[in-house]
């Protein structure tokens, strides 16, 4: 098994997966505790619309998907803040729209669009150095937001208390949605849009089972994400299984174990 980790593509996959575990572990608890678990899935479908538009225009798909998905994230936040519908409904509307427009874009392109399917299922074993740099850049941006962690967590706990203490809760909603959109686009290339939401939701939900503090939940989510990436890649190499799906299956297994065995505060 050890020789697997000496292969350059496995090393790149491991590094990309661990960066993803860090990012998703950091943002996941906000997503889960704010009741936005559906957002990751919705934004991934939105990203598909962006990828399709990029392919149609003959541009780098991710370069189009990033602003496209960010716009959709801001749109979802705006609609759920301004109208009488709940966040999950706003997500439902936007993701159906983005998916539909993506399908139309793809149909307009006359050539074969197999590339679109690599985004559907991801290809962590075919991570390019550009993908790796993109995820590292996002990690850098996230590190810059560390001073905001306390106020994001405060507003996640009780939005009204935070607002009364002059936390700019509406601005932070947009900022968080924007950053989660970036995570989703980067993760999409790695694990595929069908499994992106898993990375944001399952490690955080698993960590919640054993965590007594929000910081503990974040650290636990990073740990669960990292563990599932390392074990998942190893198992997928050993048994020749699809890597992204193996990672997510392991996350689900860890969640089941935690939900059965831990159940604390």
């Amino acid at each position: 098994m050890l020789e697997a980790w000496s292969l350059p593509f496995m090393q790149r996959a491991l590094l990309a997966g661990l960066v993803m575990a860090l990012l998703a572990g950091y943002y996941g608890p906000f997503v889960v505790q704010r009741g936005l678990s559906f957002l990751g899935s919705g934004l991934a479908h939105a990203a598909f619309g962006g990828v399709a538009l990029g392919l149609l225009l003959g541009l780098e798909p991710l370069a189009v998907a990033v602003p496209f998905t960010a716009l959709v994230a801001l749109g979802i936040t705006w609609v759920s803040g301004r109208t009488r519908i709940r966040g999950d409904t706003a997500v439902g509307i936007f993701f159906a729209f983005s998916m539909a427009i993506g399908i139309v874009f793809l149909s307009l392109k006359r050539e074969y669009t197999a590339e679109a399917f690599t985004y559907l299922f991801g290809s962590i074993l075919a991570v390019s150095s550009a993908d790796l740099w993109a995820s590292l850049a996002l990690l850098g941006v996230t590190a810059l937001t560390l001073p905001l962690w306390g106020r994001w967590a405060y507003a996640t706990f009780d939005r009204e208390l935070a607002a009364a203490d002059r936390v700019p809760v509406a601005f932070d909603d947009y900022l968080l949605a924007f950053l989660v959109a970036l995570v989703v686009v980067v993760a999409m290339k790695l694990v595929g849009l069908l499994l992106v939401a898993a990375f944001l939701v399952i490690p955080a939900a698993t960590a919640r089972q054993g965590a007594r503090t929000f910081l503990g939940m974040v650290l636990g989510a990073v740990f669960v994400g990292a563990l599932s990436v390392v074990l998942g890649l190893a198992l997928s190499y050993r048994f020749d299984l699809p890597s992204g799906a193996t990672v997510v299956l392991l996350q689900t297994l860890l969640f089941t174990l935690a939900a059965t065995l831990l159940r604390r505060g």
Partner: protein
Amino acid sequence: MTDGGPALETRDLTVRFGDHLALERVTLSVPPGAFVAIVGPNGAGKSTFLKVLLGLVRPSEGTVRVLGRPPERVDPRLIGYVPQFKTLDRTFPALAEELVASGLRRAWPGRLSAAERRLVEAALERVGARQLIGRSVSRFSGGELQRVYLARAFVRRPRLVMLDEPATGIDVLGEADMYRLLEDYQKETGATLLMITHDWEAAYHHATHVIVLNRRLVGFGPPERALSERCLREAFGHVGHAHGISLSFRRNHDA
């Protein structure tokens, strides 16, 4: 705060949500050190009034001064807010001391510094809840949550404490304790207290001033005046007999 000025002052305060008129031309002035109870039927605008004072809702018309300033320009450290604790998100992983420390930091704590820990422990001690340190708030009873939220408000030594139905969901003994804690804090610091309550009797016995709201200001003044039969009838449409304060009313003349 402007020295000697009122702790709270509203002039023709009007709040509209679309077509709905939540508050209409409320004009009042509360002196510093008062213990104010806000009573009124459901939908009377009590919570809206509190949210205006907290700077969470902007008035549609009129002016508001809290500690001498417009609400959004008041230093939030001067205000201790105790929300209705039934709004607590029990799925959020939090320890008692973290909840209290959030009042100190105005952010959610990752780790508490030694200095923060001392202040937090003193605040929990003050409300008789030191034994809750290290325990998860998700499993707290109403009475325990009440104390932790009070400690959270007190920890920043506020000049103004605002409470939204603080007695809901706690037993009579807990309620008596709460009034004692509030009155002790007030005696020690001279702070102004403002609480929304459905309990006319508590308002009668503990408050120095009562605001009777029903979108408009129906009554304002010392409890024996504001809780007069005329004001209550105007606000609620009846004077209620279940609260056992009809005896008190009999002594009072209509304002």
